[in-house]
């Protein structure tokens, strides 16, 4: 299979970057008038992106352990000189997550959000391109460029819809991210100054040859670079920008932003495991304590914020912070088993965070319906034939007179979706958040405590459980306020296209549970590979430029 198919598969590695880029250009040419065709093109491209991401994931997973990398040389230069794109299990997983959240957010936006301003679809595609590129690239400066692409698109998306609150939050968001980008540049240039290369694999390889006199400079560069990533990953105390920005953003935009903090987490995970493994001599596990304790503080901050939130949108924003903190703390412990649980948790919490942000808007609408019913939307949510509410026989509005007051289907859907979301976010059985947390907890119990984990391991263990309790309490309170306390209110009007992405995301969470063992095995293979950075380095340096004589 590999002999015949490997060549085209190698070429597929760059496709996730080119596809949204081409789509965005096409959408710009279409202009703002033809909304239906723009929406169709955007949707088709996002779907194709998801298919591509899943294909790449299956491809890297089917290959054996030593060669689970797809390396692509966009400029066809020999390795340390040109830009390199690498897909491995981690990149593929992150791409699938980005594509899933992107698809859900786009579907949701088709109900009305994409008409709320200009250039929604091109910006959305550029955002996806930046995400895919950041996950694929194996070059530090190229990573900066893709970060800027995704940030520039996110500035536009955050402002989508306009209004004072959005502009104010957008100004803060842009200012913070510009400063973080400058830190990124300083870090990259320091690392370049010390190692003389920007290729991640080459940097990792040259780290052992760095003379002691330069090691302080190298560590300073790595720390400054990490500050940029950690600000993006919303680590306390660099995360005060996040709740206002995510609350101000429109629902589909906030849902897509659920993956943005994970880009910072991804960059830390990738570079830290690559450059500072336990075998790195004088630089071994440099900054591990900062990751663990920063992550733990962030987790505590996020959990307390969820308790303190009076509104569901702020609660969702704090759940994003808590999820980042959990993953970073688990990564910093440098135990493959713990990190594998954290990756599983990352997947499930990203999907749930995305669904929660989408639910926020629908639930706020359900509240507003008491004051002023929406005028023009008169298409009810039809009974679900395939999705969650199983007892749709007595949800029918026509039977209301016969059996007393029936629960309207829309409210039933909202309630059920909210419960499932809450279960995932709080990490309670039977949803996927529980599996992720359980994997981390059992790995923490079995793990031999290293130098970092002596105190931090038990702290993470306790905080994981306590934060679940706090999250459950906060979500329960919001749920009671939204669903139980209002009396005799009319049912909100929902559209199928708004409910479908939420149902799909929750189905994906359910799928994570049903296929839990396979996903956990995948996560374990991912973290095992991350803890053997030499594999990555060998794969990158094993790539050869295509010579002109050999036609494909």
């Amino acid at each position: 299979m590999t002999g015949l198919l490997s060549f085209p598969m190698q070429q597929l590695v760059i496709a996730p970057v080119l596809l949204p880029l081409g789509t965005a250009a096409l959408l710009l040419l279409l202009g703002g008038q033809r909304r239906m065709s723009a929406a169709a093109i955007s949707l088709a491209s996002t779907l194709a992106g998801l298919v591509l991401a899943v294909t790449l994931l299956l491809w890297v997973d089917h290959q054996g352990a030593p060669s689970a990398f797809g390396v692509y040389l966009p400029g066809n230069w020999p390795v340390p000189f040109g830009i390199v794109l690498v897909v491995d299990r981690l990149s593929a997983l992150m791409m699938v997550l980005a594509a899933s959240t992107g698809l859900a957010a786009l579907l949701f936006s088709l109900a009305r959000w994409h008409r709320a301003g200009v250039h929604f679809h091109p910006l959305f595609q550029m955002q996806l391109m930046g995400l895919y590129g950041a996950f694929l690239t194996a070059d530090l400066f190229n990573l900066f460029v893709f970060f800027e692409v995704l940030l520039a698109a996110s500035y536009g998306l955050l402002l989508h819809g306009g209004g004072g609150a959005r502009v104010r939050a957008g100004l803060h968001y842009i200012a913070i991210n510009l400063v973080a980008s400058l830190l990124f540049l300083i870090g990259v240039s320091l690392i370049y100054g010390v190692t003389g290369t920007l290729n991640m694999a080459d940097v990792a390889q040259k780290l052992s040859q760095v003379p002691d006199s330069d090691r302080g400079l190298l560590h300073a560069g790595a720390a400054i670079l990490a500050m940029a990533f950690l600000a993006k990953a919303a680590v306390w105390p660099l995360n005060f920008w996040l709740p206002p920005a995510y609350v101000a953003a429109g629902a589909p935009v906030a849902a897509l932003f659920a993956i943005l903090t994970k880009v910072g987490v991804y960059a830390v995970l990738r570079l830290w495991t690559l450059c500072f493994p336990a075998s790195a001599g004088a630089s071994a596990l440099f900054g591990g304590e900062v990751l663990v304790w920063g992550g733990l503080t962030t987790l505590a901050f996020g959990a307390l914020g969820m308790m303190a939130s009076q509104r569901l949108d702020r609660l969702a924003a704090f759940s994003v912070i808590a999820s980042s903190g959990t993953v970073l703390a688990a990564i910093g412990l440098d135990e493959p088993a713990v990190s594998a649980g954290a990756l599983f948790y990352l997947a499930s919490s990203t999907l749930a965070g995305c669904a929660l942000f989408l639910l926020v808007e629908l639930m706020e609408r359900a509240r507003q319906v008491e004051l002023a019913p929406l005028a023009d939307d008169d298409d009810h949510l039809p009974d679900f034939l395939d999705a969650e509410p199983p007892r749709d026989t007595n949800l029918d509005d026509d039977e209301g007179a016969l059996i007393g007051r029936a629960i309207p289907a829309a409210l039933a859907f909202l309630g059920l979706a909210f419960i499932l979301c809450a279960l995932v976010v709080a990490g309670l059985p039977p949803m996927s958040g529980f599996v992720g947390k359980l994997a981390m907890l059992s790995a923490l119990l079995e793990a031999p405590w290293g130098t970092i984990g002596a105190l931090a391991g038990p702290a993470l263990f306790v905080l994981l459980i306590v934060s679940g309790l706090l999250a459950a309490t906060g979500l329960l309170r919001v749920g009671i306020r939204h669903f139980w306390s209002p009396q005799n209110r009319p049912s909100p009007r929902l559209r199928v296209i708004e409910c479908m992405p939420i149902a799909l995301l929750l189905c994906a969470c359910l799928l994570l549970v049903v296929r839990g063992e396979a996903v956990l095995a995948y996560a374990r293979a991912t973290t095992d590979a991350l803890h053997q950075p030499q594999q990555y380095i060998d794969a990158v340096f094993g790539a050869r430029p295509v010579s002109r004589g050999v036609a494909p």
Partner: protein
Amino acid sequence: MEIVISVAIGVLASAGVWLVLRPRTFQVLTGLSLLSYAVNLFIFSVGSLSIDKEPIVQAARVPDLLNYTDPLPQSLVLTAIVIGFATTALFLVVLLALRGLSGGDHVDGEEERS
């Protein structure tokens, strides 16, 4: 030359940090610009400063860093300038929008109550 460059970077960076922390949007914008100048100079300086050396290879001289300056930081600076310019322009637009919406130039959209 190292002293001149490092003093320039230091002055630009400190002025930039001070301005970014100010409460007026235009001061923040100016501060971000100054910071990005400082960072651009800094990127230059990591490519080992040298006088009268070109980045472009000529046939007469051996292509190594003794005869030429490192071309990579220059291309990095170029990219950083382009990206920084674009994002600063975007920031300016948002700044004007906030001014139009709030009627003031405070970064929070409203004056602090003293």
